[in-house]
């Protein structure tokens, strides 16, 4: 957070202040409702006046998100939200900018923009709703749909291999990478809050259920009965333990991760990997972004968090340096610069 986005006086906003007068129009039971509610809930925590907050979206079911936030909002075109957010942030470093997108929007048509917004460390928080399907266009395979998955556009099974969204974010050097789940209210809040306070390019994958076109895409590990055994809740500085009894953990066997049980074969907690989200070295982060159910528990939480100067800070810094060196430029002098001659 820069000082400019902070209100001079602490302002007391509530969740209601962030709800617009528009009635959400997602399908009843869609995971998007939960994400919206939790986002509205954490917004007051940032202490940023709501006029200084902007939600930018692309096309897809997620694209409607800005209409329901009583902040400034821009519902743009398919895949391009990061470009608008980048320009906005360059022009207005004082604003807190969020991008709401989906798996098709961010990873298919807008893949290039995600890559570059992340690597340039644009100070935006990209929240990607991953339902592994095209919902708004009624059920075609998306870049995260499973291989072999039958959808409207792949009636005998998809022949495309899916991408791992967080690996893309890491490869693009996002300075904050996290995953959460639409059904885990507390966890979304925690992750959104962390993302909100992060300065730089944040990429948050929210595993979201599209109950119309891809119902249960994440159920195998998110269902209440199994989730403790099948998801790994990451916490900075804590061992990567999971399971109802917190007796399972992740360790490295050579270069490969493996799931082990405390107490079996002499395994103790000391053998378990300890999560270090701030590690510059991305090796373990890459591993966490890659492992998935059913071979492994699905990691959720903040995987990587390595602050570095943001694009807008760097641009402003170059301007400050130039002004420091040469003084503030005079436009009239600039116009009359170079080789000139005078006609009387």
């Amino acid at each position, binding site marked *: 957070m820069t000082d400019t986005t902070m209100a001079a006086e602490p302002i007391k906003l509530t969740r209601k202040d962030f709800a*617009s007068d*528009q009635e959400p129009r997602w399908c009843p039971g869609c995971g998007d409702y939960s994400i919206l509610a939790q986002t509205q809930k954490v917004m007051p925590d940032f202490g940023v*006046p*709501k*006029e*200084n*907050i*902007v939600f*930018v979206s692309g*096309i897809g079911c997620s694209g409607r998100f*800005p*209409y329901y936030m009583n*902040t*400034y*909002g*821009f*519902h*743009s*075109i398919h895949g*391009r939200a*990061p*470009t*608008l*957010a*980048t*320009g*906005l942030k*360059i*022009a*207005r470093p*004082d*604003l807190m900018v969020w991008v709401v997108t989906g798996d098709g929007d961010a990873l298919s048509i807008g893949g*290039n*923009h995600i*890559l*570059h917004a992340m690597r340039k460390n644009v100070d935006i928080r990209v929240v990607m709703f991953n339902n592994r399907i095209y919902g708004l266009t009624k059920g075609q395979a998306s870049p995260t749909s499973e291989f072999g998955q039958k959808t409207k556009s792949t009636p005998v099974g998809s022949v495309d291999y899916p991408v791992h969204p967080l690996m893309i974010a890491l490869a693009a050097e996002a300075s904050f990478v996290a995953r959460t789940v639409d059904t885990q209210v507390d966890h979304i809040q925690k992750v959104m809050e962390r993302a909100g306070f992060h300065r730089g390019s944040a990429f948050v994958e929210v595993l979201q259920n599209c109950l119309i076109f891809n119902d249960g895409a994440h159920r195998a590990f998110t269902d209440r009965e199994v989730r403790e055994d099948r998801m790994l809740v990451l916490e900075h500085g804590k061992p990567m333990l999971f399971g109802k009894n917190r007796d399972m953990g992740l360790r490295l066997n050579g270069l490969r991760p493996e799931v082990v049980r405390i107490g079996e074969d002499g395994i103790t907690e000391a053998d378990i990997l300890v999560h270090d989200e701030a590690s510059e070295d991305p090796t373990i982060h890459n591993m966490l972004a890659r492992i998935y159910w059913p071979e492994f528990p699905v990691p959720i939480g903040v995987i990587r968090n390595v602050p570095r100067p943001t694009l807008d800070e760097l*641009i402003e810094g*170059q*301007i400050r*340096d*130039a*002004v420091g*060196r*040469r*003084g*503030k*430029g005079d*436009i*009239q002098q*600039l*116009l*009359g*610069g*170079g*080789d*000139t*001659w*005078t*006609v*009387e």
Partner: protein
Amino acid sequence: MTTTKGHEVPVRELDRVTIRFAGDSGDGMQLTGTQFTRTAAVFGNDISTLPDYPAEIRAPAGSLPGVSGFQISFSSTDIHTPGDAPDVLVAMNPAALRTNVKDLVPGGALIVNSDAFTPPNLAKAGYAASPLADGSLKAYSVFAIPISTLNARALEGLDMTSKQVDLTKNFFALGVMFWLFERSMDPTLRWIEEKFGGRPVVAEANRRALQAGYAFGETTEIFHARYIVPAAHLAPGTYRNVTGNEATALGCVAAATLADRPLVYATYPITPASDILHQLSGYKSYGIKTFQAEDEIAAIGAALGASYGGALGLTGTSGPGMALKAEMLGLAVMVELPLVVVNVQRAGPSTGMPTKTEQSDLLQALYGRNGESPVAIVAPASPAECFDMAVEAWRIALKHMTPVVYLSDAFLANGTEPWRVPDLADLPDLRFAGPGDGATFYPYQRDGTTLARPWVVPGTPGREHRIGGLEKLDVLGTVSYDPDNHHRMSLLRAEKVARIADDIAPLEVFGPPDGELLILGWGSTYGAIRSAVERLQARGASVAHAHLRHLNPFPANTGDVLRSYRTVLVPEINLGQLRTVIRSEFLVDAVGFNLVRGKPFQISEIQMKAEQLLGDQ
């Protein structure tokens, strides 16, 4: 007028001279031309230039496609074009001679580097025998100078390889030209000092090459005269020489100052627009922000995002990039934010001829988007005018809350002419009144005159609202699928752009207000058309010239002007795009004159076409 100077060579005064420097793309012809131009400009001539360089950075040395040329016309009177045909051709090798000599006026001076006329170079240029020896150049005054040898001799003793020495021979040629046209070497000597000050050997080599060329002119007996082109009578003021791209960049910088808002330039590298980025990225101490985006779409997206934030969001590109920007431009139309898109047109379709000029993106600018998607379009007519039209583009964008497409082209972008430096105080105020702070605010409530919607930027308390690409409910700006509303909004968007016609200068006519023939142009054809019309008028022909700077909407009097002449001729470097629009808009049976060769019209071509039409009547 003939006087005698120094060593017995008469000095002749000329009104106007056109020189073309041609050589291999590694021979530094662009630099040579630019140095001559600066010198002529600082002296006070009116000038106009045309660089002509290959798209390949280094085509094979000595080959025909590798030839790079730079033409400059300098004059003691007002000129509009870089000249149809050079009076002097400097050819640094056989390939340059072969590709350029056909343009040289009969009797013109041909200065060649005879050292380069070796059998392999002759073969590469497709000469069976040396044209210097076979009498095929009889029509010209040929000055064969062993430039490489003489230059190498002048640089003897410097710690340089022979290859490095050879790289300076263009300055020897430049020195010869400075002598021949009685020009001071000072501006170029100053430039050498600035450019190579840190590399004394290189600086010394260039100095020696230049001075040796000059001294050669003085001592040799091959030249029988020197020429002087007196200073032109330009309007009083401070002048500098600018390319169209430079003037475009400066115009946008000035507009930001006049609007009291920051300028954000977001772009992706593309010929021939990249120089605008190079220039603006050097203006950090002026607070200018530049962003090299990952692609053309991101570039216009970032520009629109910047505008949304209250800055002047500018993007620049050329035809292929324009095609990619279409969808985002449509979004800008829908959200009704100010945005300027510079399209430095080049020969298309597809990659086409990236370094060559064309005017073939007019219909793309007008119609190249889905839906009913009107944008304002402006086009500068000359390199210096790029400044004024950039300011004008921003005036329209900011006042009328609309994207504006600014159609420059490769000829304007790289061509130069003197530009009278304006006083910012004389330029229009671009700080348009905001929406005020009345109690009611609706994102799509329109100004009664312009129909512009309010530009309320994030950070404004109490006015949080959402915009986007979905159709808006009139006034309220919420999403609407109502059929009648969509119809009304489509009409409103069209009407908003149409009303700009009430806010722009009428179409001016040069020549009789009615008569036989009107030549209607737009963009960079201005100079050739104006010169042709001047010649025709001097002979008593009933011919007028009108030049459109606003292509959408047209000035309000356009129809009246067109209907005042028996024939309307529309010369364009495309296959008839403006003509198509004129015919459909005004039901005027305009005649086209269309050549798409990647180069500007010659004055004589337009003159001949006009004469043909006048004769037909």
